[in-house]
């Protein structure tokens, strides 16, 4: 029997398939609740996997993760409460589509293109992972610095509202990220003697506060009169996606490639990928003005990128045993427990097992479609619940979700503080999403900047001395300077009307 046939035999057993289905349902449940994350779903599954063989154990985690990440789009789309920072990239479009009666189209696009991105990433994982992993390892602190700056720049420029207000949001997020002892000198910053703050500001309670609590407060302030949801057409979840596939094939492909490539960089992940893809989508779109107003194009590209990055993160994890994010870090632990030592030898010593894992990746992304369909249909009933009943229940979920991150009431305090901040930001047309990305990427930005400066002995030129770093750096600077140059040229033209 060939290695591939052995792998198929390992996967297509009733027990393994049952585990995949149960994990899919579990991942969907956890991901759809605001505040609960794919990482939490993975961590909760670890003790259960102790009693399983290697293939069902990995299948359980991979399926639950893929499902939870998609399910994070459900509260984002229906209630404007994104489940992950990556979902925040296109939450405005998805939510506005829901308000105009197109929730099934928005969630359907997110579901289908997430699956496409995930499958694309898996194909890359199977066919080209050693090459990509080799490139990924060439990334030093200089390249990571520019990549983070690029992600943050995209968040500012694609957020709804003016660029200066986007920058204010970013400053709030970056400043919040400086709190704690985790900095180059190991000195407590802005902790005010509070032991809980030494660990820094957890982004999940902050995200629940900024998005969900501010939304609850806004609804409460409006007397729980949510704007009426328009009646949608009878088009199903999948039927509109054929149209979208025909209209946006390039966007889906571009998103999948961008997501997989960025996901393969250890530590970069889906958050940067989704934002960069959304920005690319807007930049090259023929309907730029529709972005942020309920346009599906950005969801197609960033949704594909999001899950492409999730698949891409497995490349360094499996090829070198280097975790790309917290989920792959947990899985590497499980692989070791199961005697599957990640690294180059895994492909030589246990090829049937690694091929079985690849098959599981495909199955996880495919099973997402029927399970996602059920979840979308079930979740849509939320829209028929009056806000005066729904908002108190959501508030309770937010409180419990914030508590559950560290099993500490301090998470609820953070949620409350960031809820008030988010409410005031929205009142002043300051977009929330850049603050979230600043909070998530702030530590990475600081670490890579300080490391690079020490390595370069204070010379900024070193940030352009390596070819990939130079390319990323020039591209980032161009993003900032081209709009200014264009503005200057337009103003310089005779007969130009000065901007208001």
């Amino acid at each position, binding site marked *: 029997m060939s290695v591939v046939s052995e792998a198929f035999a390992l996967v297509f057993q009733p027990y393994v398939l049952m585990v995949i289905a149960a994990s899919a349902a579990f991942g969907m449940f*956890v991901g759809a609740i605001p505040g*609960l994350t794919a990482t*939490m779903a993975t961590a*909760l599954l670890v003790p259960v996997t102790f009693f399983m063989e290697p293939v069902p154990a990995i299948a359980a985690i991979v399926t639950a993760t893929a499902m939870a990440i998609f399910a994070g789009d459900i509260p984002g789309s229906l209630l404007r409460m994104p489940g992950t920072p990556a979902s925040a990239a296109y939450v405005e479009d998805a939510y506005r589509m829901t308000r105009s009666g197109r929730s099934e189209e928005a969630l359907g696009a997110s579901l289908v293109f997430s699956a496409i991105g995930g499958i694309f990433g898996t194909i890359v994982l199977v066919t080209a992972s050693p090459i990509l992993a080799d490139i990924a390892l060439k990334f030093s602190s200089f390249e990571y610095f520019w990549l983070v700056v690029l992600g943050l720049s995209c968040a500012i420029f694609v957020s709804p509202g003016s660029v*200066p*207000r986007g*920058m*204010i949001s970013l*400053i709030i997020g*970056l*400043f919040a990220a*400086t709190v704690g002892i985790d*900095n*180059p*000198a190991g*000195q407590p*910053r*802005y902790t005010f003697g509070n032991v809980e703050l030494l660990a820094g500001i957890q982004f999940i309670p902050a995200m629940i506060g900024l998005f969900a*609590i501010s939304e*609850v*407060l806004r609804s*409460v*302030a*409006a*007397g*729980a009169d949510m704007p009426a949801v328009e009646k949608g057409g009878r088009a199903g979840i999948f039927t509109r996606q054929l149209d979208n596939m025909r209209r946006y094939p390039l966007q889906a492909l571009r998103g999948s490639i961008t997501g997989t490539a960025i996901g393969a960089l250890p530590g970069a992940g889906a958050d940067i990928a989704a934002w960069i893809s959304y920005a690319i989508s807007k930049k090259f779109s023929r309907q730029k003005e529709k972005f942020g107003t309920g346009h599906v194009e950005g969801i197609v590209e960033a949704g594909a990128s999001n899950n492409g990055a999730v698949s891409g993160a497995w490349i360094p994890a499996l090829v070198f045993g280097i975790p790309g994010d917290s989920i792959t870090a947990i899985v590497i632990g499980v692989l070791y427990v199961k005697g599957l030592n990640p690294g180059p030898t895994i492909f030589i010593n246990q090829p049937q097992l690694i091929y079985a894992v690849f098959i599981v990746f495909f199955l996880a992304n495919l099973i997402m479609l029927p399970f996602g369909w059920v979840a979308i249909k079930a979740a849509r009933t939320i829209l028929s619940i*009056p806000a*005066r*009943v729904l*908002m*108190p*229940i959501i*508030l*309770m*979920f937010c*409180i*419990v979700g914030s*508590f*559950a991150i560290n*099993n500490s*009431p301090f998470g*609820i*305090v953070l*949620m*409350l503080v960031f*809820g*008030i901040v988010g409410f*005031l930001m929205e*009142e*002043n*047309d300051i977009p929330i999403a850049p603050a979230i990305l600043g909070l998530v990427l*702030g530590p990475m*930005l*600081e670490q890579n*900047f*300080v490391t690079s*400066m*020490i390595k370069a002995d*204070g010379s900024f030129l070193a940030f352009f001395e390596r070819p990939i770093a130079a390319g990323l750096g020039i591209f980032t600077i161009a993003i900032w300077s081209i709009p200014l140059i264009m503005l200057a040229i337009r103003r310089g033209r005779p007969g130009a009307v000065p901007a*208001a």
Partner: protein
Amino acid sequence: MKFNDLLLGLLVFCGGVAIWVSALGFTDIPGQSYGAGTMPRAIAIFAGCLGLFMIAKAAIAGTRMPRLELAAWVRSRRSLVSVAVALALIVFYIVAAPAIGFVPASLVVMVVLMLTLRTRPLTALLVSVVACVVIQQAFGRLLLVPLPRSEFLGFLW
């Protein structure tokens, strides 16, 4: 509460100055010029420049609107009370849950907020009880989150 660009720019600039001053007390890595203060200083410079830019832009544009605009909900007593109640209920949960347990504390939060939002009392009570038990079972039992227990409701765990 809506600030115009001038006031917002001023706030951002002052925030930048405050961050810069606070960063003066942070130490560098021994033997290096970088350390705990590097990032706050960079944020302070970013905020300072942005604040100045916003102030200058607003000044050039001759901003006429009131510097502080009150949103419609601030002028409504009912809305103000509702927001205050929602915030107070979160504080109540933080303080009361460890003492009385998750179930009673969350019931109070949901029932009171629903009543504040003018839900019928019976509906508020029934929905809150069901939601409370579902959340407790999902988080407390299924996801093993150590929600604060109530002595007299131990059978739920």
